[in-house]
Each structure stands twice: as C-alpha cells, then as structure tokens.
C-alpha cells in the first residue's frame, strides 16, 4: 500500500477504536454466548442451526450498521470539521486520502467481524463441546459478509463525498435493500408484458450491486459446503464493484471545492 494511504488508514482505524465502537463487540460476544445457552435449552436437536443462523445474521446486521454509519461520515466529517485542510496541505492526493479512509474502515470492520466470529465460535463450542468439519462453511459465510461490507462501505464512502450523512445513509440503505432483492427485481421484469418495465428492471438488475449472492447464512447453518466457484465469483464481483465505486468517488471528490 502506498506510503500516503497507510497513515490515513491507520488513523481511520484509530478513530474508530477510540470512539469505543469496538468495545461493543465484547458486549456482543457475551450476548451471543448468553443467547446460545438459552437457545440450547429451548431448541433441542437444532441448537447448532439456530445459533449459526442467529450469529451470522447478527454479525451481518451489526457490520452493516457500522459500515453505513461510520462510512457516511468518513469524508463528510473531515470536511465539516475542516481536519481535511491540514491533511491535504501535505503531499497526499485526494484519491489516496479516499482509499486510506476506505481501507481504514474496512480493517475496522474486519476486526469487528473477527471478534464477533470468536463470540459465535464460543457459543457453538459451549453447546456442542466440539467443532465439526461442516463448521468451516461458517467461515465461508463470514467471508461473504465481509465482501458485502466492503461493497456497502464503498457505497457509503461514495455518497459521503458529495452529500450529508443523513442523505448518504438513505441512499446507501436504499441501494442495499434494492440489492438484496435484485433477483426478485429481475423476476418481476420476466412476468411483465410491459417492455419499458422489462428494460427498467433488467437495467436495475445489472446496475445495482447484487447483495443476494453474498448471503450464505442458510448454507452454513445447514452445514453445506459453499461452492468454490461462488467464492471466487463473489470475490471478483465485489472487487470490481468496489473499484468502480472508489473510482467514481475519487472523480467526484477530486473536483470538489472544500468550503
């Protein structure tokens, strides 16, 4: 990573840590273990399935909340508080600043997810007293959650370059929800007789990030293996989409007059 991107990323991570965001994770891990004990009591036979479902869904939602709420303020806060003035007077390009902020938040989210995964593992171990080979698919599902977070963070960062946190949150959430239902959007188009609607749904299907493909929670909960082809396809898809969003963010931000 470039010598100018790394310090920005480290500082972004440090900001998140000092905001005590990560301390919520310890609390989350404890709640997970507590919930596992409770679930173990009331769902005989399917404890593991319920815990994995509950745990992965919680990791995904908690990560999304962090990605959106920190992401939408990444650039906006620096402009509003004018901390960016001193920083951009150093030999750093605007796109390097953006990439640094992005990587910093991604590292924060990865650390967050790692902590929560430990909580989930502890809960599973408490219930079953052992790990099973099929539990490996949980790691695959978590990897997909990370890819999803990388995409959502890039979206939030993009909007953060030109709109307020409130609007950026709305835009990001709207695209996320639409992206979760991307496959349904395509199906609606297939059923319609209206050619204009067909074009619209198809266009949206291809334009919107398809978050549906990143959901492997049910697969992991049932102990099924995640196909290798899906792993690399999702990786490539997320990488390309993130790269496009960062390019667009850099294009917008590089021309922006700082008030």
């Amino acid at each position, binding site marked *: 990573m470039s010598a100018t991107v790394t310090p920005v990323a480290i500082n972004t991570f440090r900001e998140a840590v000092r905001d005590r965001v990560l301390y919520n994770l310890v609390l989350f891990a404890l709640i997970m273990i507590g919930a596992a004990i409770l679930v173990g009591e009331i769902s005989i036979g399917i404890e593991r399935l319920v815990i994995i479902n509950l745990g992965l869904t919680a990791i995904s939602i908690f990560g999304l909340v962090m990605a959106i709420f920190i992401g939408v303020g990444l650039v906006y806060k620096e402009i509003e508080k*004018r901390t960016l003035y*001193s920083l951009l007077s150093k*030999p750093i390009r605007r796109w390097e600043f953006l990439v640094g902020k992005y990587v910093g938040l991604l590292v924060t989210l990865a650390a967050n997810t790692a902590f929560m995964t430990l909580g989930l593992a502890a809960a599973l171990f408490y219930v079953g007293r052992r790990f099973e080979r099929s539990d490996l698919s949980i790691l695959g599902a978590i990897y997909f959650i990370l890819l999803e977070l990388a995409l959502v963070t890039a979206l939030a960062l993009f909007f953060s370059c030109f709109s307020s946190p409130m609007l950026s949150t709305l835009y990001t959430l709207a695209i996320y929800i639409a992206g979760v239902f991307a496959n349904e959007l395509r199906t609606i188009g297939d059923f319609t007789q209206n050619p204009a609607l067909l074009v619209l749904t198809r266009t949206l299907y291809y334009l919107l990030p398809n978050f549906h493909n990143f959901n492997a929670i049910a697969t992991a909960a049932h102990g099924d293996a995640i196909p290798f082809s899906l792993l690399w396809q999702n990786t490539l898809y997320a990488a390309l989409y993130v790269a496009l969003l960062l390019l667009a963010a850099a294009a917008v931000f590089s021309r922006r007059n700082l008030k």
Partner: protein
Amino acid sequence: MSTPAIEIEGLTMDFPVGFWRKRMRRSLDNLTFQVDEGEVFGFLGPNGAGKTTTMKLLMGLIFPTSGTARVRGRSIQDVAMHREIGYLPEQPYFYDYLTARELLDYYARFSDYSAPERRERVGKFLARVGLAAAADVQLRKFSKGMLQRVGIAQAILHDPPVVILDEPMSGLDPVGRREVRDIIQALKEQGRTVFFSTHILSDAEMLCDRVAVLAGGKLQGVGAPGAVVGIQAPAMEILFEAREGLALPAGLAEHATRIGGRCRVEVPEQDLYGALEQLRGVQARILSVSPVHPTLEEYFFRLVGGPAASRGLEEISR
C-alpha cells in the same frame, strides 16, 4: 533572477449562491502578485476580502475559476509542491481523539521520515511551540491558543521553504501573539518565505518586508507596509500623570481624557513637542508617547471612500 516563492497570476474565483436561483459571486478578481524567496509577506484585508480564499486556492483546497499560481516554480496542481510548503488554516481544527504528539507524528509520516527521525522531530517542534508539557494530552482538551500552536507546529514540521499562515495570531493572548511573531521572525532568519494573512496592521508593520492589501476580492496595492497602507502616524498619543486639581494648559485640556490619576491626550504629530513642553510646564509626569495607528478599517474606509469597501463580494452575471 531567482524563482519567486509564490507567483499568483490572474486568480479569479466565482462561487454559486442561492438555493433555487443560482447566481455567481466573485470572491477573487484577477489577483496577480508574487512573493519573493526569503521574505515575510503580509496579506492584509478586512474579513471577507478574499485572503482565506487565496490561501485555499494555493493549497488546492478549492479550484480557481481562472488564473494560475505556482509555488517555487511548481504548479499548485502538482502534489510535489506540497513538500515545499507548510500551511496553517484559519482557526485550525484537528483530530481531537489524538494527542499533540500523535497528530504531529501522523503528519510527519507524509514526509518520508524514519520512525526515530519522526520522534525526534515531533519532540523538537512541540517544544518549539511551547507544548512539550502537553504533548500527550488529547487535543479535545486543548484551548484555542494551544490548537493554534499545534497548527503552527504541523505547518513547519517538515522544514518547508515556504510557510503559509492564515491568521496565525487569531485567538491568541498577547503572550501567544508574541510567540508567533518570534516564530515568524525565526523562520525569516532561517531564510524561509512566510506568507501570512492578518487584519491587524501592527502585526504586518512589525514583521513584513512587503504586504499586499486586498479588499472586496481585488488587490489594492503591494509594497512595503508603510508605503502601501500609508502608515504615517497622523496623531500621537501622550499618556501622563497629573495630580488632583491640576489645570491643564489650554489647547490640551479640551482633548484630554482623565482616567483616575492618569490623563490621555491625542495631538497632531507636528504639535507633539509643543504639547510636551506645555505638560512639562505644569509638572505633569509623562508616562508614554506613542503613535496612533489607523485601524485597517479606517484605512479601507479612506482607500475607497466609505462603506463600499466592506461590501466586499461582487455579484457577477453569468
């Protein structure tokens, strides 16, 4: 001939105003001047004159509508230019979750110093701005004056040949102002170019080799402070002690104001010695004699003949 430290050519900046019906307003109008290598150059003007806009343009924080600028021959679009320049923004604000030491270390990372070099440098510059004792305190606990000092430290941390300071004395107490003046003086002695904005004439008079005066986004003049602003004292202030019941000489009595046992009188410069003789005659104890500087507002008022100067921005049609 050596390359000027800063060259500004025809810088013009328009920005949109209004929500529904966007109109363009001109905040800088065809600004052209240059700052020579090694000089302390003051940028004078009332609030809203365009000083901060000019500095932000130089730093690439905003982009000009037209015109160009170069720092030591490099275009302001060139990121390498930033290695040669240090910048203190107006009313600086920094990451308040960092300590002063961490903040400076962060900024030093952009200048290719090794970790030991950074440590040494950060300590040295914190001491230089009088913050050695507060080095490990989070910036959220810093006063405005302390933040200003951190701001100056980060601007000069990498030994830039050109230092741009936007209102460096703003918000400082007399001791702080004196310290900033000393830092500027020291930078000059090291051969660095200092370009700083102020709206306080005495600061410019004390420190600057040359000044540029800006009003309403237009350049009013460039040159030595006295020549440009016309700092000839039109009046002299005499402060003296007079015992109770003392009758002041005629001609002075009507202009004098008494504060407790002290009196203050303002006389035209040519009448100074006569007034002093008169006061000596009545055994008044002279405490001080000082020139009365016109304020920058008075200067601008005089320059453009009234409140027009304070109108500042000019609306333009597009």
